[in-house]
Each structure stands twice: as structure tokens, then as C-alpha cells.
């Protein structure tokens, strides 16, 4: 077992982890942050995407022990003061989710894309979200939502 300290959504946790535990299971099983979903076992679907030190990361590709000392944001940490994050709001406005299972990962990937200034066009958004699979929406409304949110976040800056 290894001693690890993580800050998740602003809260610090000290944990004893098995070296083989994936970050996603640390979040889900140990910290009970079940908003981050698991959709595959090949790091293909992106449902488990979170932000690690501001970077979009598939949390099934990272061991919990590798995240020692990191600042992590999950879908539960995105809405602030009771109001949705602009990306969450845009997903709602544009009907960019159906079953909602890929949604937490998709939203986190979109947040990162926008914050890195990479959501500059429809094509850039489509390329930027390539690592996140959705089986319900055909992406049409997701792309529209991300475009909209990118505009809103740009104006807010």
C-alpha cells in the first residue's frame, strides 16, 4: 500500500492505495465521486475524463499513485455556487446529452478544450473531442454546445 495525497474539487484527501488502483476507481470507490463514469477498458471512450492539474486526462489511464500531489477536478466540482458551469449550461440548452453516461467525461474534455483556446472552429472541436465517444447524440448538439460555451467563456474573460 502507498500513501497518497490528492486534492479533489478543492478538498484534500490522504489515502492508502494499492499501486494497481486506477485513478477512476480511487475517485469512484474510495471517494464516492461516482459522477465520473467507466465506459470501457481500453482507454477509448473518455467517459472517465477529469482534469488533473488543469489538463484533461482519462482517469482510467492513470494510477492513483501517479496522481499523488495533484489537483483534480471532476464533474462534481464544476458547478459553482449553485449555478451550472457555462459548458454544463450549454449542454442543457442545446440538448447535448441523452442518456448522460458519456456526459461527465465529454463536459470535462470540452472544458479543457475551451480553456486551452482550442475550441476555435467546428472542425477543431470535432478533432478535440475525438477521444470521447457518445452513442446517443451523433455529436451534432455536443459540437453546437461547445461552440456556444466557448463563446460565452470567451466573453466572460
Amino acid at each position, binding site marked *: 500500500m502507498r500513501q497518497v495525497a490528492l486534492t479533489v474539487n478543492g478538498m484534500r484527501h490522504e489515502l492508502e492505495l494499492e499501486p494497481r488502483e486506477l485513478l477512476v476507481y480511487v475517485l469512484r470507490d474510495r471517494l464516492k*465521486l461516482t459522477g465520473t463514469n467507466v465506459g470501457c477498458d481500453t482507454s477509448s471512450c473518455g467517459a472517465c475524463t477529469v482534469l488533473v492539474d488543469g489538463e484533461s486526462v482519462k482517469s482510467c489511464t492513470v494510477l492513483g499513485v501517479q496522481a499523488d500531489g495533484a489537483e483534480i477536478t471532476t*464533474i*462534481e466540482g*464544476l458547478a459553482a455556487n449553485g449555478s451550472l458551469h457555462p459548458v454544463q449550461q450549454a449542454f442543457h440548452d442545446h440538448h447535448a446529452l441523452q442518456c448522460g453516461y458519456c456526459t461527465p467525461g465529454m463536459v470535462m474534455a470540452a472544458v479543457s478544450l475551451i480553456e486551452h483556446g482550442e475550441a476555435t472552429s467546428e472542425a477543431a472541436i470535432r478533432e478535440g*473531442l475525438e477521444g470521447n465517444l457518445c452513442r446517443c447524440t*451523433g455529436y451534432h448538439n455536443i459540437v453546437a454546445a461547445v461552440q456556444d460555451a466557448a463563446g460565452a467563456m470567451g466573453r466572460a474573460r
Partner: protein
Amino acid sequence: MSTTEAKAAYIGSPVKRREDETLLTGRGTYVDNMAPTGTAHMVVVRSPYAHARVTRIDLDAARKAEGVVAAFSATDLQEDWKAAMPCAWPVTEEMRNPAHYPLTDVARYQGDGVAVVLAESRAQAKDAAELVEIDWEPLVAVVDVGAALDEGAPLAHPDLGTNECYVWRLDTDATGQPIEDAEVVVTRTYYQPRLIPNAIEPRAVLAVPGPSDDVTLYAATQVPHLLRLLAAATLGLSETKVRVVAPDVGGGFGSKLDVYAEDLLAIALARRLDRPVKWTEERSENYLATIHGRDFVTEYTFGATKDGTITHLRARVKAAMGAYLQLVTPGIPLLGAWIYAGPYAIPNYSVEFTGVFTNTTPTDAYRGAGRPEATYVIERTMDALADELEIDRLELRRKNFIKEFPHTLSSGLTVDSGDYEASLDKLLELLDLDAVRSEQAKRRESGAAKQLGVGFSTYHEMCGLAPSRILGAIRYAAGGWEQATIRYLPTGSVQVISGTSPHGQGHETSWAQIVADRLGCDIDVVEVLHGDTSISHAGLDTYGSRSLPVGGVALTFAADKVIEKARQIVAHQLEVAADDLEFADGTFRVKGSPDKEMTLAATAWAAFAAHDLPDGMEPGLEGTAVYDPPNFSWPGGAHAAVVEVDIETGDARLLRYVAVDDVGTVVNPLIVEGQVHGGVTQGISTALYEEGTYDDEGNMQTANLVTYLVPSAAELPSFELARTESPSPTNPLGVKGVGETGTIAAAPAVINAVLDALSHLGVKDIQMPATPERVWRAIQEAKA
């Protein structure tokens, strides 16, 4: 009595979904998020062989491993099953249905379960499962649906002596003239690949035993009601002792419309061990253990006159069942059986399905179920016939369209409404075909590497499953009705209980729209409950685009019962005749005395207090309706795809997708468009990307998301959608259903576009999916 007037404030308006906030903030209740204290985690040990006998199985080492609670082989649990796994659709009397149980000692497909291990944690269960020792006697496997009926083919079930499951025919020889005598006969053979549904949430179940010999099964399922009934029957339990809850469910597309081994194992083992038992599927496991779709070989023939009047069709279909019959496996081809003429009036109709066993994962309903398989062969052959007759492809379609409604098909069912020409006209307006053709001509002339093609598909489909009498006539075991209850609570809120079970479709929003309009109340006072058999005690669940045209319509009848009861109460209290009351916008008013009025909400209080009700009336304001639709519903439309094909690499890329659908009255355009986007994407993906394959020994070669291509945003364009609207006269809402239209229409449009791009090179056929390799080879073969 005056009629009930609904103001239609909500129906037709793009109300944003009330489901969203929970899901957007990570508070969804998916089954895998639940872990009650004391949960034992189950792992299934699966056959690595497609066909093999277990000659020895030793669970001792697994049982002794750290954290292990128990481990069981097939033999250990045989007494737990009171019946074999259920198949609800014996399509013929003679149909062969080999019994299968949740665990087996003769594996018939790769992934068939042979043992389970339960441990305190999932990781411990997985570790221990590795310690299960099994000696196998591999048997010869049959894999290819096209060859499985050949003389000498290996047998999936040797004791049956054949791989034939059933033969089912529908012949309507209207004119007595054989198809061979038609002036022009065009025959084509198509393979429709095996598809993996890939709901992004894998399956998951959690069985929690209760204190009085009862059990609650939390399941990622589309069908909590069917699952309760069939789990109880299979396990020999009283239905009263089984509660099934479908919490938030992460997509289904048909793959969660089933009773699976793990559902039954979880219940049986939770009862044996007297502690919660949970199983969560891994994605790679999903490719083996969850049903597949399609895997059809179809020979399809049109007979026509030289001027392009289609007089005959004949379909000869070999449909893979996989190794066993799951819930509705044999019925899947039949769901398309009546629409093998497409939206065209064709008098001579002959369809024959042969169900075929192979040592592969069982097939069952995948989005469209039977109707994409029909539409694909029709629309491909329509282009082939047009080319043969040298008639414009769209003109040939127009010439043969059904033009008058209602129209009784030569297959026997009646299409209640439609307007296929209107959809096609609107499609052409959006598409700007002249511009596309001119760009295509330019690229052909210049010999560009990237050639352009445009393809069409005009379709109709039958959904809204289904009139119970028809289901009975075609040997389906259950009915097709749906139940709804509406309760007007004393303080003015409205509780709606629906037997449908959404998993992404937004029923909570759409159902609230329908009820709020009907009752004339604010949408925010309406609560919609579903997906828990202890709350919604009767229903037939969500599949086959049935929820709105059956379950949504049931809501209107339940609302009418509430209004009619309230009318009696108001008439009594205002001392007027019930006939003298008009109901609009949530208020009863006396005709001619508009100041005398009483709201429905006030009536709800009066019904609750029960101080002054008509003699003999029961207190409370609640209505329950069970709606059994008199007909299927019949969406239709016209789709077009514009593709760019790189003739040097074979890469085909979709540039535009234009869809015009007629789904009748639209309750929520936001949700309807979302359904079309998703449906179209799965059809496009069928045409270009997805194919589940096995090697000759039955090893799945595409058993994960790396080797099986589910498209990302980068593979797709934004879509161009429009609608025409011919409301269904069959139901009071005029609705038809929309969940599957896109998947039904899209694949042939895309393949027709790929072929159109290559027609000047002499390419006449490409099988799905049109991968770069297939396209490149087709070009090389045409050159040679």
C-alpha cells in the same frame, strides 16, 4: 358532452429537458454507482472457445483466494433454475429452441459463462476468477451465417442435427404471375454485418435480498417489467417477491431489452448468500456477453415493367440467431417482414426468413431491428433497378411511391398516413442537388483524387409496438399495450406514472408536456415516475419506438379519465349538468355563465376532502388507462448523403447528411431532432465503420472499442434536418415514434452515395461497411 380542449401550450415546443441537471452534475444513479454495505462482487468466468465442452472444472483455488465469498459452476447452480432462459417469440410451431441456462458446461459461443466467483471487492473477484481451473474439449464451431446451412457444415447444436432454427414465409401472390416473368428482373445479394450495440454504459445489475424472501434487482435495463415477470418465472419466484428498478440507464439501443444470465445469477446468488450481489460488465466483456445485431445475408429481387413500375419483390433472408435464442431473437427479421416493399406499392410480395444458429453471441434487437435490414436491401436494389432501366433513381422511387392513404400493403398491414413525395421534395430543396451534381461532374472531368457521390434512401417503417392481437397472431408471447396513471394530488401537484422505461429519450420531459397540456396545468407541477416496478406496477417498457405512440398516448386517456371524474364533481358542486361544463386551460366553466367556474386543482382538493361528492363516488382524483394501439405507426421520409471518396486510398468520408422525416405530430422538437441525430449516426456508422467479425474458429476479432470502430465527432459532419408532418389518425396525439427512423434510413443512403461516387469507374457493389480496403479493392477490381 363537450369535448376536452387542450391548449397545446407545451406540445410542439422545444422544452429543455428536466433530466439534464442531475446528469450534468454527476449525480446520475447508474447501477454501478450503487454499492450497499456487504455487497459481494460477481465475476463471470467465460469460455475462451466458441464451442467446447468443460471436462473438468476446479474452483478450489478460487474459493480459497483472498476476499472470496463463494464460487459456483454450472452444476452447482442447476437446481436454482426452474426454467431455461426465456425466448418470448417462438415464430413458428416447429422452431428449434435449445435450452440454455445462466451457466453451462458446454459453451456454444465465445463468452458463454461457465462459472461465477464472488468476492468482497471486484478486484478480488477478478483475481480469483483467474484461479479457476478448467479442462476443455474444443468442438468444431460454425460461424458464417451464409454457409451454416451448407451440406457438411459444423453444427452449433449437434443434437439438433441442423443449424436451421426456423423458416418463416409471407407470400401474397396477388397477380399469379411469377417474378421470373416480369419484364425486368434485378437480383442482388447483400451481407449486413454483425453490429455491436455499444451503449456507453455497459450492463450492470445489483440484487439486494429483502427481509421477507423478496429481492430488489437494480438493473441497467430497458425492460424492468418484462424482466420482473421473466426473472420470477425462470427462478420459480412469485412476481410479488421480485422488484426491478431501472434507475438512470446509460443507453440501450435494444441491447438492454433482454433477460440476461447475469440478471438471473445476481438474484439467485443474492438469495443464496443473503447479501447484495453486484455485477458490472466490462466493455470487452460486453462484446461477447451482450446481444449483437444484424448478421443477415439477403438475396433481394425486384420484378418490374420496362417503364419502371415495380410489380414484384422477393426477399430470401438468412438471419443469424447466434448460439441461442434470447428474448426476441427469432422475431427480429419479422419486425421488418411487412415492409420489404418499402414506401412503394408493389403487388406481388414474397418474403422468406431462415433463422440460422452459429457459434456466436446471440443476436437480438438492435436499433431498428428488422427494418434497417429490409430498408437497406430495398434502397440498394432500387438504385440497381433504376440503373438497369436507365431511369433516374428518384423518378423510379416517385413512380412507385404509395400515394393514397390509408393504404393496405400487399403484405397485409395498413399504413394509416404519410406523404413520401412531400418529404422527397423538401429533401431536394435542402440538398440543392444541381449544385452537388455540378461539383461531381467537375471532379470527374478533372480526374480529382477525391470524387463526390450523392445517395438517397426513401423509406417508411412500422413502429409503435404494437397491437396485441397482431402480436398474438404472429406468436409473440406478450401484448403491446402500455399503462399510464395520473394522480391529481390534493395540493395541486400532478403525479404521472408511466410503464415506459427511458434510457436517454427524455420521457420525463415529454410526458410532462403531454399531461400539462391535457390537464391545462403548469408543466412544473407535473412529476413523472417510471422504471420501478413497485411504483409503476404494470407496463411493457421501452423499445421499438413504442414509448410515445403507445405510452404517450396512454397518458392522454388517463388524463381524460381524470377530467371526466372531475367534471362529475364540479357539476355536483356547482349544481349544473355535466354536459353544461366546458373544460379548458385547467378550468371547468359553465356554458353561458362564465363566472361560474372551478379549477381542476380545486377539484382535486374536493376529491381528496370528499365532503361533498356525488352519491356513490369514490374519493380521490386519479385515472389509469391502458392503451392497446389499433395499428402500428408509420413514420417515413427521405434521406440523402453526400460523400467524398478518395479513389487512391479508398477512404470514404461523409460531407453532408440531409434528412427529412415525417414522424407525425412532434411533442418536443429538441428531443425529436436529438433522436434523429443519434439514429442517423448509427446508420452512417453501419455503412462506413462498424463490423463485428469472428475468425473461422469463432474467436471474436473485434472485441473492444479499439478494433470495433464506434465513430467519434471527428468522423461526422453536422446534420441538416427538416420535417414534414402527416399526423397519425390512429391516435389522438397524431404521433408516430422517432427512435429508429435515422438508423433505418441512413445506411443505404450512404452506401448508395459511395457507389455513386465510383459509378464512372464501373464499381457496382460494395458491401458494408465501406472501409478504405473494401472501397480500394472494389476500384481495383472494376479496373481489372
